[in-house]
């Protein structure tokens, strides 16, 4: 499954990153790398973007960007 499909409050672990170029680099620079644990904190009031908790801080990504992160639920 991909990160955008994880339910609010759900925990998951990154298995693969399918993006490329600037987007992939940005996501990884921010600490979403293979094996990272992510908690989906909430979805913005209008349905996008989503708020994640990664490596002890909060990060916002759009759903279509989260779709490039493959995860397994924990």
């Amino acid at each position, binding site marked *: 499954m991909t990160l955008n499909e994880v339910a609010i409050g759900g925990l998951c672990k990154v298995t693969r990153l399918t993006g490329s170029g600037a987007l992939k680099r*940005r996501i990884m620079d921010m600490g979403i790398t293979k094996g990272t644990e992510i908690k989906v904190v909430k979805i*913005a009031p209008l349905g*996008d973007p989503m708020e994640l*908790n990664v490596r002890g801080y909060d990060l916002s990504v759009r759903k279509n960007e989260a779709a490039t992160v493959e995860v397994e639920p924990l």
Partner: protein
Amino acid sequence: MEIKIALAGNPNCGKTTLFNELTGSTQYVGNWPGVTVEKKDGLLKGHKDVIIQDLPGIYSLSPYTLEEKVSRRYLVQEQPDVILNIIDGTNIERNLYLTTQLIEVGIPVVLAINMMDLVDARGDEIDLSKLSAALGCPVYKISALKGEGCLAAAEAALRIAKAHKAPKELPHVFTGSVEHTLAHIEESIADLVDSRTLRWYSVKVFERDKDITDGMAISPELLRHLDLHIQDCEQEMDDDAESIIINQRYEYIEKIVAETVHKKEAKHALTTSDKIDRIVTNRFLALPIFVVIMTIMYYISVTTVGTWATDWTNDVFFGEIVTDAANGFLESIAAPDWLSSLIVDGIIGGVGTVLGFVPQILLIFFFMSLLEDSGYMARVAFIMDRIFRKFGLSGKSFIPVLIGTGCGVPAIMAARTIEEQRDRRMTIMLATFIPCSAKTEIIGMVTAVFFPDSVFVAPAMYFMGIAIIILGGIALKKTKFFAGEPAPFVMELPAYHIPSFKGVLIHMWERARGFIIKAGTIIFSVCVIIWFLQAFNTSLEMVEDVEQSMLAGIGNTFAWIFSPLGLGDWKNTVAVISAFMAKEQAVGTLGILAGADPENEEAVFKGIAAMFTPLTAFTYMVLNLFDPPCLVAMAATAREMGEKKWAALAIGFQCMIGYGLAFVVYNLGGWAFYGTPFGIMQGIACVLIAVALYFILRPAAPYRKTVPAAQGAD
């Protein structure tokens, strides 16, 4: 000898606070050469020869964003003597990621772990000596907000810079075949680069970072040979080179964090910020809270306190105190008429009007700084992104538009918070289409004189402004200038902080100072010129009647431009030109041109009514609402756009929109409501609408997918 300390760190790590703490009032704010990324210098307190150079807040040294490119170019090419790397102790894992890149540049690094007060309050522990041993650089605890430990860290950096010792052995960040390949690259390029920067360059070659390898004297044969090794490594690790490097950096950090940091709370535990966010970005409460905060900010800085302050500055300070003082002085030295006129009407009248906006601008910037420093601004972007993305902008574009309802100049400057250059430029081009407080004066006048019974003119103008922003955004996004994948919205939601009052004030002043200086100088020159043109005729004699002035001559010369809009009379033309300088001038200029006593509102209204028909008045209003707001805003646009080409594009675009809309309104309006026969002009108006629709509806310009987001920037 001068010593340079570079201050580097992530955004939101307290870098600005530390910079203010270390430099006091010696800061110099400018831009990095050729780009609109802010550059700040200052002298270390108590040292005349130590320069602190504040780098942009960055997460990485990747080639994808302008700030990161600027930073790494500075570090590698200018070689500061030492890097003071500030780290948010409450968010140590991601902050150390930049550190692993900084230590490779070959400049000694000193770490300053900030927000230690918060770390202690949480009950977390960081083993400084272990961390220092692992990373091979000195580590200091500080709290920038409380001013604790800051100077000690800077002095330590200074000692290291003076010692001129090469950095100790680099930490072993990379392992296995990656390290093996890097070692091989190092061997091959050892003769091409400075030995201190060897690791940096070899990692960049490994990552295939073209921005760096293009600047190296490396032969294509060698690059091809090395690429084979890189490909082998990629196959073995089943990932691309760039990702392999990032993964190993984070794996390394995880390892040392596990050894040196002991957190009391469990992973993903709710922090105070999370609890605040439960309310502030709540599904149902987020938007109402946002509206309330914006209303308060707007109410105080524009409607109430701001207006009082501006009115007082204009009417009392410049209108009475300064004018009376100047008059008294001029009389006492028996100055000639022309000099009194120049000083009182030209300079005090003109520059005073602009400086009158300073209190409003200070207030708006005060609130902006407050919202930004507290961490709320990131939440605004988070809440609004969904809407703004629809027309090619991001959530961060909303703030400038909102501020634009007060004044376009701070709106343009507020776009600085948008990191992505393309989005920032587009936001600047569009934000001022929302009617500002000076434009509402024109709306008020036209409504009062020509449409007194109509209640929907003013709201209609706001909706039209919003429509132009949205449609303009859609159309611009499809041009080759702005085409491209939407910039990633991978944005940190920083922990909430109670901002320090001093920090907010410094932040506010930094922004307002630029406005005052630039606006002051430009407006000063223009005021003198305008005054000269309206006071003299071509034989350089002072005229009693404006009709004989050079300004009237200029009006007649340019009248042809505006006659397709029904504004072909020289008075109309002069009114357009003077409103082009500053919208708040429009009503005043019309009053003067009407030849009425400015104190007698009824006479002024009658005079204005005689100069326009309802249709031309409406056209005049539309033209003024959608052409560039004023000279000051144009100057701000030009500066914020960075390059002349972009400034010309932005201002040209706004002129085109204003003129085009006015043209359509006048010609089709005349045909629809006032019985003008359908002729060539009406035909052209229809063509204009068709062209606009084409730009809005056509498919987007093609773009190469691989172009990094910031490449168009330099």
